[in-house]
């Protein structure tokens, strides 16, 4: 499975040649004599991990694969088997607790997944079986079944459209949950299948499942009639929703996990934060410390025992069994015993505390009222708590542009007709014409131009008028993101929704409407337009020359009432200018460029009158090309290009895709300089490097060659040029040239899977990306987005990536990045469900990263370091004591102290700290983005801070032990001359330890709420109380009353008091000094850069 995924990821699937044959309705073709029902997977979607039966073993296996859990298991087993200084309960109980809690949590999560799966799998669909309609659960659909889908239903599997209730053999589909595009797409039925589906017998020869949403090559053969080739326009994808069509019939071609949707979802792999990786690294260090300690002690023990009289002094003779035991076995068990004795250095409780911190801490995100969006009545959502701290580490942000950066609601801003600019200021006051900002007031000739332009806007599009059947529908459509008119503006009777394949088309049609030209809709091949004089003009739509990303333009050919055949064309300036007269271009290009710099989407509009001969020629060409079986695309393209020539430019439009509130500010937060243009992503003065199909097609050479050249060239410019100043570090300061980089999906796929040495391209591409302040990738498939994220993620220094998106097309990217953030936007819930965090608006990202992320990181980093530190200085005296007890694994502390230290005495303060600490208050963090860089690159969990904490732990551990050791050079510490024993020794060390460690935390606490006070002073008081209590009673269930009155006697000794105070102060002295003398020094770190997709 994994390999298959990998293969897919690297595009190797292209070479797969075998195809599958599907019999429509499971009816064998009479022509073929043998009918073997082919086996395909069923239509069940499985996202859950466990079943009832395999839960326990599988979950346990998963859990014990964690290095820490496995380690504790080993320790526990050692304690059970070998005679060790501490009882198995001390490690068994916490381990059991941790395992159980985790198992319950994971079980619950899996149950939720089961539920979600069932919802999809048990959904009832209608299937045509031998002419009868039968209700079936979705999971029972088999490949070859003919399925009925009604309006607003999602397709249960990938279907080939056979029949539609619409008379024009089309249906409308929104793929919002697949690729995030909420507009309506037109899909076509297979030609010549009008006859009854019951008797239709046909075979479909299609390729094996592959994830590319926009690729589908199939041959549909009716048994009688010949072969038809089908394309993606015939395929209805699972997950897409049927719109504006009453019902359709389709034959299932891919089902279940083989649907394009399922293939596009990468498995939700466990995301691990850098902090967790650091913990594991530190854990290894501590394991090494532990093992070396045990080794040292074992060695010492046997060296010491080899001295005369020490092996078996008369007062401590061995039993017969011990004498008989094998020496090496003894050594080994001794080694294990030491391991057990020192195993507290890696406490289970750290994992418990980290888990609790993450779990409880994540509530603060969902509780934050700043994330609450009154529009959708929802706040932030936390899907995983494992990544809280990762929010403070983000280096690259990948955002989906449409809907995420922008609101995905286009607005017509201005247009320019024949060199004069018209701006839409206040539409309601404008009755006639535009407000002209430059150029003469409307003259008659001007007026004509104007009307032609507006007509063009009204005609040149593929917009459909949504027939509203009632109010409910209307509301529902708005929710779906279909752009309509605002209710206040139009009379209810005129309520009209426009459905188009791109929101800017709607914006243009709406724009034209504001100026008096209203598109009324299609009436059997006639387009009806209402002009300013409220007359309805009718145009017969002859041909639509569809938009495609390569041509970057579209055209319509219409015939007006008076018989003129006109071609209207609109498209990107770059694709229109070469096809019109040069003098017209000069007049308009200035405006277009100006609008583009402001960040509007600009389109140019051109038209051409066709003579009847010209039209006849074009018509024939188009028809021929449409019917071509192979190379249809190429042939059509050629005809299009031929037709769209010699046009005259009439104007240009500018449409604004509004940015989400505060988007610019949010994006700017770290890289103060990366202001954008084109959604203000690019700064003025940013040099644009463009790598698109268009740039590649210059010169007519093979794309691969050209790609290589261009890449090398850009690489030279972006990577090698900047450092005229020799230091690489400064090459990113704002003084240098900023580069913006644009790449489109088609080119990207070339980069990723062109030739065998694609790794070379990849690295070039990556270097270019990393050296640009902004990278814009357009028209990308979901997996491509993920590929980019993956590439950056795995690049040198493995930067932390964050993906943010709102549509299902962003899911792959969200899953791929270290942190995936979903926006609870208009495009469905897929992104939110698959994300780690979901926020209502893009602007919330700022607080999420700068505020919460930073704090979480500081908190958890401190928590981790503190935990290692406090256990080091806990166990170090224990280790040192082995030198004074004949290396006999004698514990220094009582078992109760050993167990309670991490659970009760020192756990609560650090937990409270790690939940409440605000070393810098939220407002300052948010207003001062440079602070975010202070913790970048895992600054607080690198080796140098770790070394500092470790040294501190060692210093304090040494101090605790030897301070008391010197005190005990005369164990008569009371004024009655009585002496203290070994448990008093341990208790004094332990008391110093608990106080020091707690006060150290108190010193680090910058934000003392009442909870901190309560917990810090509370746990010290609890320690005192517990010690009194523990030593004050003869415990009936205990055999050994080792601590009986030890603590009370200790408190009676003035010397003990004095030594405790002395040692606490001495331990904290370096910390205090450092705190006072340290000037605020911020580590140098790389700035956070943004990559936009």
């Amino acid at each position: 499975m994994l390999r298959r995924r990998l293969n897919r990821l690297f595009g190797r699937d292209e070479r797969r040649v075998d195809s599958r044959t599907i019999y429509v309705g499971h009816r064998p073709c009479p022509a073929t004599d043998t009918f073997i029902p082919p086996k395909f997977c069923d239509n069940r979607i499985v996202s859950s991990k466990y079943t009832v039966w395999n839960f326990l073993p599988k979950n346990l296996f998963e859990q014990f694969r964690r290095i820490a859990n496995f380690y504790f298991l080993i320790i526990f087993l050692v304690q059970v088997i070998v005679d060790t200084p501490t009882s198995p309960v001390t490690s068994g109980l916490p381990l059991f607790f941790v395992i159980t809690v985790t198992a319950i949590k994971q079980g619950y999560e899996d149950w939720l997944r089961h539920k979600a799966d069932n919802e999809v799998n048990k959904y009832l669909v209608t299937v045509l079986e031998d002419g009868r309609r039968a209700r079936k659960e979705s999971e029972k659909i088999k490949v070859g079944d003919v399925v009925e889908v009604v309006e607003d239903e999602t397709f249960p599997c990938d279907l080939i459209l056979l029949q539609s209730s619409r008379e024009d053999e089309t249906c409308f589909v929104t793929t919002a949950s697949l690729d995030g595009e909420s507009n309506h797409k037109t899909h076509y039925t297979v030609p010549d299948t009008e006859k009854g589906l019951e008797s239709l017998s046909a075979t479909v020869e299609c390729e094996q499942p592959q994830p590319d949403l926009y690729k589908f090559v199939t041959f549909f053969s009716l048994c009688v009639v010949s072969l038809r080739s089908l394309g993606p326009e015939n395929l209805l994808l699972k997950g897409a929703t049927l719109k504006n069509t009453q019902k359709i019939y389709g034959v299932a071609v891919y089902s279940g996990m083989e649907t394009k949707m399922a293939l596009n979802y990468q498995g939700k792999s466990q995301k691990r934060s850098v902090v967790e990786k650091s913990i594991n690294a530190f854990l290894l260090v501590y394991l090494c410390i532990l093992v070396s300690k045990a080794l040292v002690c074992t060695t010492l023990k046997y060296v010491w025992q080899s001295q005369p009289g020490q092996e078996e002094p008369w007062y401590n003779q061995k039993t017969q069994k011990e004498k008989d035991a094998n020496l090496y076995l003894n050594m080994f068990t001794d080694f294990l015993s030491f391991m057990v004795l020192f195993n507290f250095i890696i406490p289970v409780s750290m994992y418990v505390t980290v888990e609790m911190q993450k779990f409880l801490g994540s509530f603060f995100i969902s509780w934050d009222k700043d994330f609450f969006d009154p529009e959708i009545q929802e706040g932030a959502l936390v899907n995983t708590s494992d990544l809280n701290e990762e929010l403070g580490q983000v280096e690259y942000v990948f955002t989906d542009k449409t809907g995420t950066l922008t609101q995905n609601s286009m607005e017509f801003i201005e247009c320019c007709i024949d060199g004069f600019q018209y701006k839409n200021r206040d539409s309601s006051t404008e009755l006639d014409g535009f407000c002209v900002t430059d150029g003469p007031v409307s003259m008659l000739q001007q007026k004509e131009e104007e009307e032609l332009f507006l007509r063009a806007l009204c005609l040149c599009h593929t917009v459909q008028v949504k027939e509203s059947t009632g109010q409910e529908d209307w509301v529902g459509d708005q929710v779906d993101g279909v752009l309509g008119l605002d209710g206040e503006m139009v009379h209810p009777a005129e309520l009209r929704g426009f459905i188009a394949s791109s929101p800017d088309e709607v914006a243009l049609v709406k724009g034209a409407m504001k100026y008096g030209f209203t598109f009324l809709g299609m009436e059997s091949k006639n387009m009806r337009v209402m002009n300013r004089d409220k007359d309805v003009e009718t145009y017969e739509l002859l041909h639509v020359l569809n938009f495609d990303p390569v041509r970057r333009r579209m055209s319509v050919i219409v015939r007006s009432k008076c018989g003129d055949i006109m071609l209207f064309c609109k498209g990107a300036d770059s694709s229109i200018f070469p096809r019109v007269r040069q003098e017209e271009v000069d007049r308009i290009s200035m405006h277009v460029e100006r609008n583009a710099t402001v960040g509007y989407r600009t389109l140019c509009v051109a038209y051409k009158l066709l003579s009847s001969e010209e039209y006849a020629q074009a018509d024939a060409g188009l028809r021929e090309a449409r019917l071509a079986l192979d190379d249809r695309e190429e042939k059509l393209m050629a005809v299009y290009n031929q037709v769209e020539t010699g046009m005259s430019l009439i104007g240009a439009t500018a449409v604004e895709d509004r940015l989400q509130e505060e988007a610019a500010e949010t994006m700017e937060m770290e890289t103060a300089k990366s202001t954008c243009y084109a959604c203000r992503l690019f700064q003025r003065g940013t040099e644009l490097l463009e790598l698109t199909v268009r740039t590649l097609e210059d010169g007519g050479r093979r794309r691969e060659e050209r790609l290589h050249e261009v890449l090398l060239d850009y690489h030279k410019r972006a990577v090698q040029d900047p450092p005229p100043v020799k230091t690489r570090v400064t090459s990113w300061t704002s003084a240098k040239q900023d580069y913006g980089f644009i790449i489109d999906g088609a080119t990207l796929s070339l980069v990723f899977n062109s030739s065998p040495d694609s790794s070379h391209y990849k690295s070039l591409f990556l270097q270019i990306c990393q050296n640009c302040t902004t990278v814009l990738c357009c028209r990308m498939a979901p997996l491509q987005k993920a590929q980019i994220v993956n590439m950056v993620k795995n690049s040198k220094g493995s930067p932390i990536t964050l993906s943010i998106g709102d549509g299902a097309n962003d899911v792959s990217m969200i899953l791929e990045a270290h942190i995936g953030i979903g926006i609870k936007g208009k495009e469905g819930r897929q992104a939110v469900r698959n994300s780690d965090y979901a926020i209502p608006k893009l602007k919330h990202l700022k607080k999420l990263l700068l505020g919460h992320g930073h704090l979480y990181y500081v908190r958890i980093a401190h928590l981790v370091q503190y935990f290692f530190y406090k256990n080091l200085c806990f166990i170090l005296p224990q280790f040192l004591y082995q030198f004074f007890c004949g290396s006999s694994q004698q514990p220094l502390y009582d078992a109760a102290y050993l167990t309670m230290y991490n659970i009760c005495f020192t756990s609560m303060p650090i937990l409270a700290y790690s939940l409440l600490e605000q070393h810098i208050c939220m407002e300052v963090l948010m207003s001062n983005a440079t602070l975010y860089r202070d913790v970048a690159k895992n600054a607080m969990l690198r080796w140098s801070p770790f070394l500092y904490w470790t040294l501190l732990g060692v210093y304090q551990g040494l101090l605790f032990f030897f301070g008391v050791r010197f005190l005990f050079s005369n164990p008569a510490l009371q004024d009655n001359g009585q002496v203290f024993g070994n448990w008093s020794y341990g208790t004094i060390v332990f008391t110093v330890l608990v106080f020091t460690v707690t006060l150290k935390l108190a010193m680090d606490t910058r934000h003392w709420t009442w909870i901190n006070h309560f917990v810090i002073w509370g746990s010290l008081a609890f320690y005192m109380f517990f010690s009194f209590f523990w030593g004050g009673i003869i415990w009936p269930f205990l055999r050994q009353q080792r601590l009986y009155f030890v603590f009370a006697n200790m408190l009676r000794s003035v010397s003990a008091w004095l030594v405790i105070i002395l040692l606490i102060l001495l331990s904290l002295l370096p910390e205090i000094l450092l705190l006072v003398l340290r000037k605020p020094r911020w580590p140098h770190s790389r700035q956070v850069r943004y990559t936009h997709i």
Partner: protein
Amino acid sequence: MSQQDQKDHQGQQQPEPLPVHTTTIQKVRIMMKEELETTNRPDNTAFTQQRLPAWQPMLSAGIVIPGFVLIGLAFIGIGVALFITSQNITVLEKDYTGVETTSDCYKCSNPSDKNCTCKLEFSLSTLFEGPVFFYYGLSNYFQSQRSYGASKDEYQLSGDLDYFKTPISACSPYQYDANQNPIVPCGSLANSMFNDTFKLYQIVNGTKKLVPFDGKGIAWWTDYNIKYRNPSVTPLKNAFNGTVKPSFWSKPAYELDTSDPSNNGFVNQDFLVWMRRAALPDFRKLYRRITEGDYARGLPAGNYSLEIAYNYPVLSFGGRKKVVFSNVSWMGGKNQFLGIAYLVVGSLCVVMSMVMLIVYAKFKFPEDD
């Protein structure tokens, strides 16, 4: 149905019912909104918004310097007091292992020699102020070994007769004797109880005058009153029927103190002193106090002779034995460490506060600006 039909159909229907629809929908929406408002909106409390009032201490030089001076001075004060106190404590330490041939105890250092006594003589030039505490000390003796310390039966020692019959296996090899009789008290710890005995004589005009020892109050009060209990059998001897004494012992547990019947068995204070394991391999344990008679004020100047019943072998493991006479103060026995440590840390604090003051005066810390 064609598109045209649909449209006409709507055109007729729409105007009339629409207002009703909108109002009801609006109503429903408002209701839903209110409901959601209350359910979905996060609580606006100080805790959930992380805005709990908080004290944000800053350790600035202005606080730390005076603080350090104060702490330093206090520490120096305590250090001086500790040092002087420790200086005033008199300690007299004598090794009597008998490794040197000149020592009187040399003759006893041969372990095969049983019931050997030797003498240790010393003289005091001034009064050894009382109350004088008499300790014995052992070195290179690992009472802190785990197996050694675990080799005892606490239930037995708290007087549970069941465990007289079957001592815990941790006592092995001192669990049962060769005839499978249970040993009480069992275990290495009890078995190896220190059994040298001492008698101190003051030589007054050539005659030996016994200095009376007080064997009470040498162990922790809680040990002989609560933690360790004899079985409630009288006479105590009967409780020990069917058991044997530890092999190293010369007398059974119920005859440890012939002079005081209440100081026998498991609550014998010498026994309890031994049972409280020393933390370090060089240790001393309280043997007797000199609080009575003419010696209540201390040991007067003069010549003394300590008679030692030398029983306890230490040379086999390279150990040493010593006796220590010491008086104690409020801080316990003599210990120079604490006083010196306090003085050092105290002066360190003062010096550092001076350094900080200089740095502060010269550079003015940026955070105070």
